[in-house]
Protein backbone atom coordinates (compact mmCIF):
# COMPACT_ATOMS: atom_id res chain seq x y z
CA UNK A 1 0.00 0.00 0.00
CA UNK A 2 1.51 3.40 -0.93
CA UNK A 3 2.65 5.54 2.00
CA UNK A 4 0.62 8.72 1.47
CA UNK A 5 1.90 11.73 3.39
CA UNK A 6 -0.43 14.39 1.95
CA UNK A 7 -3.90 13.90 0.54
CA UNK A 8 -6.39 16.59 -0.51
CA UNK A 9 -10.08 15.91 -1.14
CA UNK A 10 -12.07 18.39 -3.24
CA UNK A 11 -10.22 21.37 -1.79
CA UNK A 12 -11.90 24.66 -2.67
CA UNK A 13 -10.62 28.08 -1.68
CA UNK A 14 -12.57 31.24 -2.33
CA UNK A 15 -11.52 34.81 -1.65
CA UNK A 16 -14.05 37.57 -1.22
CA UNK A 17 -13.10 40.84 -2.88
CA UNK A 18 -15.90 43.26 -2.19
CA UNK A 19 -19.00 41.75 -3.78
CA UNK A 20 -16.94 39.44 -6.04
CA UNK A 21 -15.93 35.93 -5.09
CA UNK A 22 -12.68 34.67 -6.58
CA UNK A 23 -12.34 30.88 -6.65
CA UNK A 24 -8.59 30.24 -6.41
CA UNK A 25 -8.96 26.46 -5.98
CA UNK A 26 -11.86 24.65 -7.57
CA UNK A 27 -11.76 21.13 -6.13
CA UNK A 28 -8.21 19.82 -5.91
CA UNK A 29 -7.56 16.10 -5.40
CA UNK A 30 -3.96 14.97 -5.09
CA UNK A 31 -1.99 12.36 -3.18
CA UNK A 32 1.69 12.83 -2.36
CA UNK A 33 3.86 9.90 -1.29
CA UNK A 34 6.40 9.94 1.50
CA UNK A 35 9.88 10.81 0.26
CA UNK A 36 8.64 12.24 -3.04
CA UNK A 37 9.86 15.43 -4.67
CA UNK A 38 6.74 17.06 -6.10
CA UNK A 39 6.58 20.27 -8.09
CA UNK A 40 3.36 22.23 -8.35
CA UNK A 41 3.53 24.11 -11.61
CA UNK A 42 1.29 26.67 -13.22
CA UNK A 43 1.13 30.26 -14.40
CA UNK A 44 0.69 33.17 -11.96
CA UNK A 45 -2.80 33.14 -10.53
CA UNK A 46 -3.31 29.42 -11.27
CA UNK A 47 -3.73 28.63 -7.58
CA UNK A 48 -0.46 26.82 -6.90
CA UNK A 49 0.56 29.09 -4.03
CA UNK A 50 -2.94 28.82 -2.58
CA UNK A 51 -2.66 25.02 -2.70
CA UNK A 52 0.77 25.31 -1.11
CA UNK A 53 -0.81 27.30 1.76
CA UNK A 54 -3.54 24.67 2.21
CA UNK A 55 -1.07 21.78 2.40
CA UNK A 56 1.11 23.69 4.86
CA UNK A 57 -1.81 24.62 7.16
CA UNK A 58 -1.05 28.28 6.47
CA UNK A 59 -4.64 28.92 5.40
CA UNK A 60 -7.98 27.17 5.71
CA UNK A 61 -9.86 25.74 2.72
CA UNK A 62 -13.37 27.07 2.11
CA UNK A 63 -14.51 23.50 1.37
CA UNK A 64 -12.86 20.10 1.23
CA UNK A 65 -10.32 18.32 3.39
CA UNK A 66 -6.54 18.16 3.69
CA UNK A 67 -5.00 15.08 5.33
CA UNK A 68 -1.39 15.05 6.49
CA UNK A 69 -0.02 11.79 7.85
CA UNK A 70 -3.60 10.57 7.97
CA UNK A 71 -4.78 13.47 10.11
CA UNK A 72 -7.69 15.57 8.91
CA UNK A 73 -6.28 19.09 9.36
CA UNK A 74 -9.69 20.67 9.89
CA UNK A 75 -10.15 18.54 13.04
CA UNK A 76 -7.01 19.86 14.71
CA UNK A 77 -7.03 22.39 17.55
CA UNK A 78 -5.04 25.64 17.30
CA UNK A 79 -2.35 24.13 19.54
CA UNK A 80 -2.09 21.06 17.33
CA UNK A 81 -1.83 23.18 14.20
CA UNK A 82 0.97 25.22 15.81
CA UNK A 83 2.75 21.98 16.77
CA UNK A 84 2.26 20.67 13.23
CA UNK A 85 3.86 23.78 11.73
CA UNK A 86 6.64 23.61 14.27
CA UNK A 87 7.58 19.91 14.01
CA UNK A 88 6.24 18.39 10.82
CA UNK A 89 6.81 21.03 8.14
CA UNK A 90 9.69 23.26 7.12
CA UNK A 91 8.70 26.28 5.02
CA UNK A 92 10.87 27.99 2.43
CA UNK A 93 9.48 31.14 0.79
CA UNK A 94 10.28 33.10 -2.32
CA UNK A 95 11.04 36.22 -0.28
CA UNK A 96 12.89 34.22 2.44
CA UNK A 97 10.70 35.58 5.27
CA UNK A 98 13.58 35.80 7.70
CA UNK A 99 13.08 37.88 10.81
CA UNK A 100 15.28 40.91 10.20
CA UNK A 101 15.76 41.54 13.90
CA UNK A 102 17.45 38.18 14.41
CA UNK A 103 20.82 36.99 13.11
CA UNK A 104 21.09 33.95 10.83
CA UNK A 105 21.73 31.88 13.96
CA UNK A 106 18.79 33.56 15.75
CA UNK A 107 16.48 32.75 12.85
CA UNK A 108 17.48 29.09 12.90
CA UNK A 109 17.04 28.77 16.67
CA UNK A 110 13.54 30.32 16.65
CA UNK A 111 11.57 27.18 15.66
CA UNK A 112 13.59 25.28 18.26
CA UNK A 113 12.63 27.86 20.91
CA UNK A 114 8.98 27.23 19.98
CA UNK A 115 9.61 23.49 20.25
CA UNK A 116 10.98 23.94 23.79
CA UNK A 117 14.50 22.69 22.99
CA UNK A 118 17.02 23.78 25.67
CA UNK A 119 19.37 26.68 24.98
CA UNK A 120 22.57 24.67 24.64
CA UNK A 121 21.10 22.02 22.34
CA UNK A 122 19.45 24.51 20.01
CA UNK A 123 22.59 26.64 19.71
CA UNK A 124 24.63 23.59 18.79
CA UNK A 125 22.07 22.38 16.26
CA UNK A 126 21.75 25.83 14.65
CA UNK A 127 25.52 25.89 14.18
CA UNK A 128 25.47 22.43 12.61
CA UNK A 129 22.63 23.34 10.24
CA UNK A 130 24.24 26.61 9.17
CA UNK A 131 27.47 24.71 8.55
CA UNK A 132 25.53 22.21 6.48
CA UNK A 133 24.12 24.93 4.21
CA UNK A 134 27.56 26.52 3.90
CA UNK A 135 27.08 29.53 6.16
CA UNK A 136 29.36 28.51 9.01
CA UNK A 137 31.28 31.78 8.73
CA UNK A 138 28.26 34.11 8.59
CA UNK A 139 26.19 32.77 11.47
CA UNK A 140 25.97 35.96 13.45
CA UNK A 141 25.14 38.29 10.57
CA UNK A 142 21.74 39.90 10.27
CA UNK A 143 19.70 39.03 7.14
CA UNK A 144 20.31 42.54 5.77
CA UNK A 145 24.03 41.76 5.71
CA UNK A 146 23.55 38.63 3.59
CA UNK A 147 23.03 38.11 -0.16
CA UNK A 148 19.79 36.64 -1.55
CA UNK A 149 21.32 33.18 -1.90
CA UNK A 150 22.71 33.30 1.63
CA UNK A 151 19.35 34.37 3.01
CA UNK A 152 17.66 31.46 1.27
CA UNK A 153 20.26 29.14 2.78
CA UNK A 154 19.39 30.51 6.23
CA UNK A 155 15.72 29.87 5.42
CA UNK A 156 16.58 26.28 4.46
CA UNK A 157 18.57 25.75 7.67
CA UNK A 158 15.63 27.21 9.62
CA UNK A 159 13.19 24.92 7.80
CA UNK A 160 15.27 21.92 8.92
CA UNK A 161 15.54 22.99 12.56
CA UNK A 162 12.97 20.58 14.01
CA UNK A 163 13.68 17.69 11.59
CA UNK A 164 10.45 18.02 9.59
CA UNK A 165 9.18 15.19 7.42
CA UNK A 166 7.93 17.65 4.78
CA UNK A 167 9.65 20.64 3.19
CA UNK A 168 7.29 23.11 1.52
CA UNK A 169 9.06 25.47 -0.83
CA UNK A 170 7.16 28.30 -2.52
CA UNK A 171 9.14 29.54 -5.54
CA UNK A 172 12.42 29.23 -3.62
CA UNK A 173 14.57 30.24 -6.58
CA UNK A 174 12.40 33.03 -8.03
CA UNK A 175 14.42 35.87 -6.49
CA UNK A 176 17.82 34.34 -7.17
CA UNK A 177 20.21 34.39 -10.11
CA UNK A 178 20.62 31.21 -12.18
CA UNK A 179 23.76 29.89 -10.49
CA UNK A 180 22.56 30.59 -6.94
CA UNK A 181 19.17 29.12 -7.84
CA UNK A 182 20.89 25.94 -9.03
CA UNK A 183 22.81 25.70 -5.75
CA UNK A 184 19.59 26.06 -3.74
CA UNK A 185 17.88 23.38 -5.85
CA UNK A 186 20.81 21.01 -5.34
CA UNK A 187 20.64 21.62 -1.59
CA UNK A 188 16.92 20.87 -1.45
CA UNK A 189 17.34 17.79 -3.66
CA UNK A 190 20.13 16.59 -1.39
CA UNK A 191 17.79 16.78 1.63
CA UNK A 192 15.24 14.79 -0.36
CA UNK A 193 17.58 11.98 -1.42
CA UNK A 194 19.86 11.78 1.63
CA UNK A 195 17.44 12.49 4.47
CA UNK A 196 14.25 11.17 2.82
CA UNK A 197 12.38 14.46 3.36
CA UNK A 198 9.25 14.87 1.23
CA UNK A 199 9.62 18.05 -0.84
CA UNK A 200 6.59 19.91 -2.17
CA UNK A 201 7.51 22.92 -4.22
CA UNK A 202 5.48 25.51 -6.09
CA UNK A 203 7.62 26.67 -8.98
CA UNK A 204 8.05 28.08 -12.45
CA UNK A 205 11.67 27.07 -12.56
CA UNK A 206 12.49 24.35 -15.14
CA UNK A 207 15.57 23.39 -13.15
CA UNK A 208 13.31 22.49 -10.22
CA UNK A 209 11.12 20.37 -12.47
CA UNK A 210 14.24 18.57 -13.63
CA UNK A 211 14.92 17.16 -10.12
CA UNK A 212 11.24 16.37 -9.35
CA UNK A 213 9.76 12.88 -9.17
CA UNK A 214 6.34 14.14 -10.30
CA UNK A 215 5.02 17.40 -11.65
CA UNK A 216 1.49 18.56 -10.89
CA UNK A 217 0.21 21.10 -13.40
CA UNK A 218 -2.31 23.48 -11.86
CA UNK A 219 -4.50 25.65 -14.05
CA UNK A 220 -7.50 27.78 -13.07
CA UNK A 221 -7.63 26.20 -9.63
CA UNK A 222 -7.74 22.62 -10.92
CA UNK A 223 -5.21 19.83 -11.39
CA UNK A 224 -4.72 19.81 -15.16
CA UNK A 225 -2.46 16.76 -15.22
CA UNK A 226 0.14 14.90 -13.20
CA UNK A 227 3.29 13.76 -14.97
CA UNK A 228 6.21 11.63 -13.91
CA UNK A 229 9.64 13.16 -14.47
CA UNK A 230 10.48 10.63 -17.18
CA UNK A 231 7.39 11.64 -19.18
CA UNK A 232 8.70 15.13 -19.85
CA UNK A 233 11.70 16.42 -21.67
CA UNK A 234 13.56 19.28 -20.08
CA UNK A 235 16.86 20.63 -21.24
CA UNK A 236 18.55 22.69 -18.60
CA UNK A 237 21.62 24.48 -19.76
CA UNK A 238 24.50 25.67 -17.61
CA UNK A 239 25.46 29.26 -17.10
CA UNK A 240 28.88 30.34 -15.99
CA UNK A 241 31.02 28.54 -18.54
CA UNK A 242 31.76 25.51 -16.40
Amino acid sequence: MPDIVVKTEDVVKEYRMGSNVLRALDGINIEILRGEYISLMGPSGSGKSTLFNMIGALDRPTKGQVYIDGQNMSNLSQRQIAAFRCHRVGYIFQSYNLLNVRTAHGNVTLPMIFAGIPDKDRNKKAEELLDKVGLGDRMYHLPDELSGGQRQRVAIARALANDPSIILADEPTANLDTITGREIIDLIKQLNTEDGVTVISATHDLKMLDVSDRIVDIRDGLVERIRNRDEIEIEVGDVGGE
Partner: protein
Amino acid sequence: MDQRTSIEEQIDLPFVESLKISFQSLKIRFGRSIITTAGITLGIAFLVSVWANNEIDLALQESGRSSAITNLDEASEQGISTKDIWLIIMSLIVCVVGIANSMLMAVTERFREIGTMKCLGALDGFVVRLFLLESGFQGFAGALIGALIGTLGAVLLGLKNYGMDLFFYFPLFPANPENGSFQVGVLLLILIGCFLGMILAIVGSSFPAWRAAKLPPAEAMRTEV
Protein backbone atom coordinates in the same frame (compact mmCIF):
# COMPACT_ATOMS: atom_id res chain seq x y z
CA MET B 1 -7.49 7.27 6.44
CA ASP B 2 -5.69 5.74 9.36
CA GLN B 3 -4.31 7.86 12.17
CA ARG B 4 -0.63 6.98 11.70
CA THR B 5 1.02 9.46 13.96
CA SER B 6 -1.08 11.73 16.09
CA ILE B 7 -0.14 15.39 16.22
CA GLU B 8 0.78 16.59 19.68
CA GLU B 9 -0.21 19.94 21.18
CA GLN B 10 2.12 22.92 21.04
CA ILE B 11 3.74 23.80 24.36
CA ASP B 12 3.60 27.14 26.19
CA LEU B 13 6.93 28.91 26.36
CA PRO B 14 8.37 30.20 29.63
CA PHE B 15 7.88 33.93 30.25
CA VAL B 16 11.62 34.53 30.22
CA GLU B 17 11.80 33.45 26.54
CA SER B 18 9.21 36.09 25.64
CA LEU B 19 11.17 38.67 27.62
CA LYS B 20 14.41 37.79 25.82
CA ILE B 21 12.83 37.92 22.35
CA SER B 22 11.02 41.21 22.98
CA PHE B 23 14.17 42.87 24.44
CA GLN B 24 16.23 41.70 21.49
CA SER B 25 13.64 43.01 19.06
CA LEU B 26 13.57 46.42 20.76
CA LYS B 27 17.36 46.58 20.77
CA ILE B 28 17.83 45.75 17.09
CA ARG B 29 14.91 47.89 15.95
CA PHE B 30 16.21 50.70 18.14
CA GLY B 31 15.75 53.49 15.56
CA ARG B 32 12.15 52.49 14.83
CA SER B 33 11.48 51.91 18.54
CA ILE B 34 12.68 55.45 19.27
CA ILE B 35 10.18 56.92 16.79
CA THR B 36 7.29 54.95 18.31
CA THR B 37 8.47 55.87 21.80
CA ALA B 38 8.74 59.54 20.76
CA GLY B 39 5.02 59.46 19.88
CA ILE B 40 4.25 58.34 23.42
CA THR B 41 6.71 60.84 24.92
CA LEU B 42 5.08 63.77 23.13
CA GLY B 43 1.55 62.77 24.12
CA ILE B 44 2.43 62.34 27.80
CA ALA B 45 4.65 65.47 27.84
CA PHE B 46 1.73 67.54 26.58
CA LEU B 47 -0.70 66.09 29.12
CA VAL B 48 1.66 66.36 32.08
CA SER B 49 2.79 69.90 31.23
CA VAL B 50 -0.81 71.16 31.02
CA TRP B 51 -1.83 69.37 34.18
CA ALA B 52 1.32 70.23 36.16
CA ASN B 53 1.02 73.85 35.10
CA ASN B 54 -2.49 73.84 36.45
CA GLU B 55 -1.32 72.27 39.73
CA ILE B 56 1.36 74.94 40.09
CA ASP B 57 -1.18 77.72 39.48
CA LEU B 58 -3.50 76.20 42.09
CA ALA B 59 -0.75 75.80 44.68
CA LEU B 60 0.49 79.35 44.22
CA GLN B 61 -3.04 80.72 44.40
CA GLU B 62 -3.68 78.76 47.59
CA SER B 63 -0.50 80.17 49.09
CA GLY B 64 -1.70 83.70 48.39
CA ARG B 65 1.90 84.59 47.69
CA SER B 66 1.60 84.97 44.01
CA SER B 67 1.52 88.39 42.49
CA ALA B 68 1.39 86.89 39.04
CA ILE B 69 -2.04 85.39 39.46
CA THR B 70 -3.59 88.71 38.76
CA ASN B 71 -2.31 88.28 35.23
CA LEU B 72 -4.29 85.10 34.74
CA ASP B 73 -7.76 85.83 33.51
CA GLU B 74 -9.30 82.80 35.24
CA ALA B 75 -7.51 83.25 38.54
CA SER B 76 -10.55 82.67 40.67
CA GLU B 77 -10.53 81.54 44.25
CA GLN B 78 -12.59 78.47 43.28
CA GLY B 79 -9.49 76.72 42.01
CA ILE B 80 -9.50 74.73 38.75
CA SER B 81 -11.36 76.54 36.00
CA THR B 82 -13.55 75.18 33.20
CA LYS B 83 -10.93 76.26 30.70
CA ASP B 84 -8.27 74.26 32.56
CA ILE B 85 -10.47 71.16 32.68
CA TRP B 86 -11.16 71.54 28.97
CA LEU B 87 -7.44 71.89 28.24
CA ILE B 88 -6.58 68.78 30.27
CA ILE B 89 -9.31 66.76 28.54
CA MET B 90 -8.08 67.94 25.12
CA SER B 91 -4.48 67.04 25.96
CA LEU B 92 -5.65 63.63 27.17
CA ILE B 93 -7.48 63.04 23.87
CA VAL B 94 -4.41 64.10 21.85
CA CYS B 95 -2.31 61.77 23.99
CA VAL B 96 -4.68 58.78 23.52
CA VAL B 97 -5.02 59.26 19.77
CA GLY B 98 -1.27 59.88 19.28
CA ILE B 99 -0.22 56.78 21.20
CA ALA B 100 -2.90 54.55 19.65
CA ASN B 101 -1.73 55.69 16.19
CA SER B 102 1.95 55.05 16.98
CA MET B 103 1.24 51.56 18.27
CA LEU B 104 -1.15 50.69 15.45
CA MET B 105 1.47 51.57 12.84
CA ALA B 106 4.27 49.83 14.74
CA VAL B 107 2.31 46.55 14.89
CA THR B 108 0.73 46.72 11.42
CA GLU B 109 4.10 47.04 9.69
CA ARG B 110 5.11 43.79 11.40
CA PHE B 111 2.21 41.61 10.21
CA ARG B 112 4.61 39.67 7.99
CA GLU B 113 6.86 38.95 10.97
CA ILE B 114 3.82 37.72 12.91
CA GLY B 115 2.82 35.42 10.02
CA THR B 116 6.36 34.05 9.84
CA MET B 117 6.49 33.37 13.57
CA LYS B 118 3.23 31.46 13.29
CA CYS B 119 4.69 29.40 10.42
CA LEU B 120 7.50 28.40 12.74
CA GLY B 121 5.10 27.21 15.42
CA ALA B 122 4.29 30.26 17.56
CA LEU B 123 0.94 30.14 19.36
CA ASP B 124 -1.42 33.12 18.95
CA GLY B 125 -1.08 33.92 22.65
CA PHE B 126 2.72 33.96 22.44
CA VAL B 127 2.67 36.48 19.57
CA VAL B 128 0.26 38.75 21.46
CA ARG B 129 2.36 38.45 24.63
CA LEU B 130 5.52 39.49 22.74
CA PHE B 131 3.86 42.61 21.40
CA LEU B 132 2.32 43.53 24.74
CA LEU B 133 5.70 43.24 26.43
CA GLU B 134 7.41 45.33 23.78
CA SER B 135 4.73 48.00 23.83
CA GLY B 136 4.67 47.99 27.65
CA PHE B 137 8.43 48.71 27.78
CA GLN B 138 8.13 51.37 25.11
CA GLY B 139 5.08 52.88 26.80
CA PHE B 140 6.77 53.09 30.20
CA ALA B 141 10.07 54.46 28.88
CA GLY B 142 8.36 56.97 26.58
CA ALA B 143 5.90 58.09 29.23
CA LEU B 144 8.59 58.52 31.91
CA ILE B 145 10.64 60.74 29.61
CA GLY B 146 7.47 62.57 28.52
CA ALA B 147 6.35 63.12 32.11
CA LEU B 148 9.75 64.55 33.05
CA ILE B 149 9.82 66.82 29.98
CA GLY B 150 6.26 67.94 30.71
CA THR B 151 7.11 68.70 34.33
CA LEU B 152 10.20 70.62 33.27
CA GLY B 153 8.06 72.67 30.87
CA ALA B 154 5.55 73.45 33.62
CA VAL B 155 8.36 74.40 36.04
CA LEU B 156 9.90 76.78 33.51
CA LEU B 157 6.52 78.41 32.90
CA GLY B 158 5.96 78.58 36.67
CA LEU B 159 9.34 80.27 37.13
CA LYS B 160 8.37 82.84 34.52
CA ASN B 161 5.02 83.51 36.22
CA TYR B 162 5.93 83.25 39.90
CA GLY B 163 9.68 83.58 40.11
CA MET B 164 11.46 81.89 43.03
CA ASP B 165 8.18 81.67 45.01
CA LEU B 166 7.52 78.60 42.92
CA PHE B 167 10.10 76.56 44.83
CA PHE B 168 8.67 77.50 48.25
CA TYR B 169 5.16 76.43 47.32
CA PHE B 170 5.95 73.78 44.72
CA PRO B 171 3.08 71.24 44.76
CA LEU B 172 5.22 68.10 44.88
CA PHE B 173 2.87 66.01 47.03
CA PRO B 174 -0.92 65.69 47.04
CA ALA B 175 -2.68 68.30 49.18
CA ASN B 176 -6.25 68.96 50.18
CA PRO B 177 -6.44 72.47 51.64
CA GLU B 178 -9.53 73.36 53.68
CA ASN B 179 -10.69 76.21 51.50
CA GLY B 180 -9.31 75.07 48.17
CA SER B 181 -9.62 72.24 45.70
CA PHE B 182 -7.71 68.99 45.91
CA GLN B 183 -4.23 69.05 44.38
CA VAL B 184 -2.82 65.88 42.90
CA GLY B 185 0.80 66.95 43.28
CA VAL B 186 3.45 66.77 40.59
CA LEU B 187 5.04 63.54 41.88
CA LEU B 188 1.76 61.64 41.62
CA LEU B 189 1.16 63.31 38.28
CA ILE B 190 4.42 61.89 36.92
CA LEU B 191 3.38 58.43 38.14
CA ILE B 192 -0.07 58.83 36.58
CA GLY B 193 1.61 59.89 33.31
CA CYS B 194 3.91 56.81 33.32
CA PHE B 195 1.04 54.47 34.11
CA LEU B 196 -1.23 56.06 31.52
CA GLY B 197 1.46 55.95 28.80
CA MET B 198 2.16 52.29 29.50
CA ILE B 199 -1.51 51.30 29.58
CA LEU B 200 -2.33 53.27 26.42
CA ALA B 201 0.63 51.72 24.58
CA ILE B 202 -0.43 48.23 25.64
CA VAL B 203 -4.10 48.84 24.76
CA GLY B 204 -3.10 50.52 21.46
CA SER B 205 -1.00 47.55 20.36
CA SER B 206 -3.17 44.77 21.76
CA PHE B 207 -5.95 45.08 19.19
CA PRO B 208 -3.75 44.98 16.03
CA ALA B 209 -1.48 42.31 17.59
CA TRP B 210 -4.47 40.16 18.52
CA ARG B 211 -5.99 40.62 15.07
CA ALA B 212 -2.71 39.70 13.33
CA ALA B 213 -2.18 36.69 15.60
CA LYS B 214 -5.68 35.39 14.78
CA LEU B 215 -5.14 35.65 11.00
CA PRO B 216 -4.02 32.52 9.14
CA PRO B 217 -0.25 32.96 8.53
CA ALA B 218 -0.71 33.12 4.74
CA GLU B 219 -3.01 36.12 5.14
CA ALA B 220 -0.77 37.86 7.70
CA MET B 221 2.23 37.47 5.37
CA ARG B 222 0.26 38.88 2.44
CA THR B 223 -0.56 42.08 4.30
CA GLU B 224 1.21 45.09 2.81
CA VAL B 225 1.53 48.38 4.66
